[in-house]
C-alpha cells in the first residue's frame, strides 16, 4: 500500500485525572522502522496499545493499514504483530509449542522452524518458558509478534533488561526483520537504540510529541553549541590554554573554554569552532596530543526540546496494567 501504514492523529488517553497521552500525532510509511522515543512514563506504551486497539482512546483517531482501530480493532489482528512489554506465557510451555500455537491463530503464518532459526531459538525449541533467559524470552516474544507474517509489528521496549551483547544481536535482528518488508513501530526509552535503528521517530515527553524527524536530522538541526576537546602534554597545556582563552574574546565562532582533567580543554562554539581552534594552535606551534569533536546525540535533542537532561528520569511505570476501558 502507498498511504501511511500507521496514522495517528491527536491521540489522547486519560486514566481519571492522569493524562497518559495528551496529544500525539504521527504517521508511519511502509517499510520503515519508526521510533517512539521518550523517558519512562512518557505515555509511549499507552499510545501504542491504544493504536493497536487494546485500549480505547479518549480522543483522536488511530488507523492501522487503513482500518480505524478504535472502531474495529479486530480488523487488523491478522496483519498486526505485537510484542508486549509485560506479557508472559505459561511456565511449562516450550518455545516450539508456543510458536506453533500462535502460528495456528493466523491465516498465513510464517514457518515456525524458519522463525525459530531467524531468532536463534532452534536449539532452545524444547525448553520450557520458565527455564529461558531474559534474552531468550525476549526473542521468543519477538517471534510470537512475527509468527503471523504481519505487515506491521509493534515492538515495545524490546531490549530492556538485556545485556549489551544481547541488545546488539537484537538490533541486528530488527534489521533482518525489516529487510523482510515488515513495517516496524519501535517503542523505546533508549536513545542509542532509537539512533541505531529508526529511520524516523517522534520524541514523546509527558504525553506530547516534542520532536519529530530522522535521528540525523534532529541532531543536525540542533542550534546548540558544538564542542571540541583538545588534550595537551604537560608542558604545552598552559600556553595552549592562554591561546584558546584569547580566542574566546577575539573570534566570533568561539564562545567558551573550559578546562577538563588530564590537560584537556573543551572549546565550545558555532559549527565552525574547529576551524577557529586549529589555525590558532598551528600559529603558536602548540601540537595537541589528542583532539576530538564531541558527538551530539538524541540526548542533546531531548535536552534542547524539554530543557531537561534525559538521563535518570523517574522510573515510574506507565499505567500499563490499568484495566478500565480495555477491549476484551
Amino acid at each position: 500500500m502507498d498511504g501511511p501504514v500507521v496514522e495517528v492523529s491527536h491521540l489522547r488517553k486519560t486514566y481519571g485525572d492522569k493524562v497518559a497521552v495528551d496529544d500525539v500525532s504521527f504517521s508511519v510509511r511502509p517499510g520503515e522502522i519508526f521510533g517512539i522515543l521518550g523517558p519512562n512514563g512518557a505515555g509511549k506504551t499507552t499510545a501504542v496499545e491504544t493504536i493497536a486497539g487494546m485500549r480505547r482512546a479518549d480522543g483522536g483517531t488511530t488507523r492501522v493499514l487503513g482500518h480505524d482501530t478504535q472502531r474495529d480493532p479486530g480488523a487488523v489482528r491478522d496483519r498486526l504483530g505485537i510484542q508486549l512489554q509485560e506479557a508472559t506465557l505459561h511456565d511449562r510451555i516450550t518455545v516450539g509449542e508456543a510458536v506453533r500455537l500462535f502460528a495456528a491463530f493466523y491465516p498465513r503464518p510464517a514457518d515456525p522452524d524458519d522463525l525459530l532459526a531467524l531468532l536463534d531459538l532452534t536449539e532452545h525449541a524444547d525448553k520450557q518458558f520458565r527455564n529461558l533467559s531474559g534474552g531468550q524470552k525476549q526473542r521468543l516474544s519477538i517471534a510470537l509478534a512475527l509468527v503471523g507474517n504481519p505487515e506491521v509489528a509493534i515492538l515495545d521496549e524490546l531490549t530492556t533488561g538485556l545485556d549489551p551483547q544481547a541488545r546488539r544481536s537484537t538490533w541486528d535482528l530488527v534489521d533482518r526483520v525489516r529487510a523482510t518488508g515488515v513495517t516496524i513501530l519501535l517503542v523505546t526509552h533508549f536513545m542509542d537504540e532509537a539512533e541505531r535503528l529508526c529511520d524516523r521517530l517522534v520524541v514523546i515527553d509527558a504525553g506530547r510529541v516534542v520532536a519529530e524527524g530522522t535521528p540525523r536530522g534532529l541532531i543536525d538541526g540542533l542550534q546548540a553549541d558544538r564542542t571540541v576537546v583538545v588534550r595537551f602534554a604537560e608542558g604545552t597545556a598552559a600556553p595552549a590554554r592562554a591561546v584558546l582563552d584569547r580566542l574566546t574574546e577575539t573570534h566570533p565562532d568561539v564562545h567558551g573554554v573550559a578546562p577538563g582533567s588530564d590537560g584537556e580543554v573543551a572549546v565550545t562554539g558555532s559549527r565552525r569552532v574547529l576551524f577557529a581552534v586549529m589555525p590558532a594552535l598551528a600559529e603558536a606551534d602548540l601540537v595537541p596530543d589528542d583532539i576530538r569533536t564531541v558527538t551530539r546525540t538524541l540526548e542533546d535533542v531531548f535536552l534542547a526540546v524539554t530543557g531537561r537532561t534525559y538521563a535518570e528520569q523517574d522510573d515510574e511505570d506507565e499505567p500499563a496494567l490499568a484495566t478500565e476501558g480495555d477491549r476484551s
Partner: protein
Amino acid sequence: MTATATARRRPTGTSGWRGFGRLLQTEFLVWFRDLASPFFGVVFPTVVLVGVGFLIPGMRDPIQGAPPGSVWYQVTPIATYVPTILAMAVGTAALTVMPVTLATYREKGVLRRLSTTPMRPQGIVAAHLVINAVTTSVGVVLALVVAAVAFDVPAPTQPAVLVLAFVLGLAVMLSLGMVVAALAPRASAANGIAMSVYFPMLLLAGVWTPGPAMPDLIQEIGQFSPLGAASQALSAGWFDDGFPTLQVVVMVVWTALLLPLAVRLFRWS
C-alpha cells in the same frame, strides 16, 4: 463448537476461533505438565475413595439398622459415599484447578497477549472448560471402576438420572469456578476465594456425612447449594427410584445465574 463458531464469525472477517484445536491441545499438554492439576483433576477422587474405604473401619460392612425396603438395605457405607465422591470430583476440578489456572493467566498477561492475536481470549477459557470437563469425567470413571472392583458397589438404579446429575453438576460448578476466576485479581486470591467456597460446599455435599449419615439440617440446606444438589441428585440416581426434581431445578437455576455473571465479570487483564 469450533465449526459452528467459525462459520458464524467468518462473515465479519475475523475468524476468532482459528487454531482452537491447537490451543486445546497445547493447553492440555501444559495442564498435564503442571502435576498438581492432573492429580486433583483426575486421581484425587479415587485416592479419597480408596482411603476412606480401606482406612475407616466398617465402611465395607452393610449398614446396620437399615430396614428391608429402605434404599440403604444391604448397602455398604462406602457405596453410599460413591455419589459424594463424584460430586467432590466435580467441585475439586471446578474450584481448585480451573480458577487458579485462569487467574494466573490473567495475572501473567497471557490473556492480554492472546487478545492481540486473531484468537479471542474466550478461546482459552473455552479450552479450560473442555479440559476440566473431560478430565473430571475421566477421573470419575476411574473412581467408579475402582469402586466396582475394590468395594463391590452395586450398579446404579437410574443410570440416566446419574449421568444427567453429573452433567448438570459439572455445568453448575464450572460456572461457579468461572465466577471465582472472574472475581479474583490474582492467582493467590483465586485460590483463597475458591477454598472458602470449596470446603463449605464439600460439607453440604456430604463429604463428612455421606448418604444416610447426613443430618437433616445439612440435607435441607445442602439441597439448595450447587454441590449439595449435585450430590443428592447423584445419590438419587444411584440408589433411589424417584426423580430428584428439586435438586435438578436448583442446579439449573444456579447455572443460569452464575454463568452470565461470570461472563459479565470476567476481565482479560
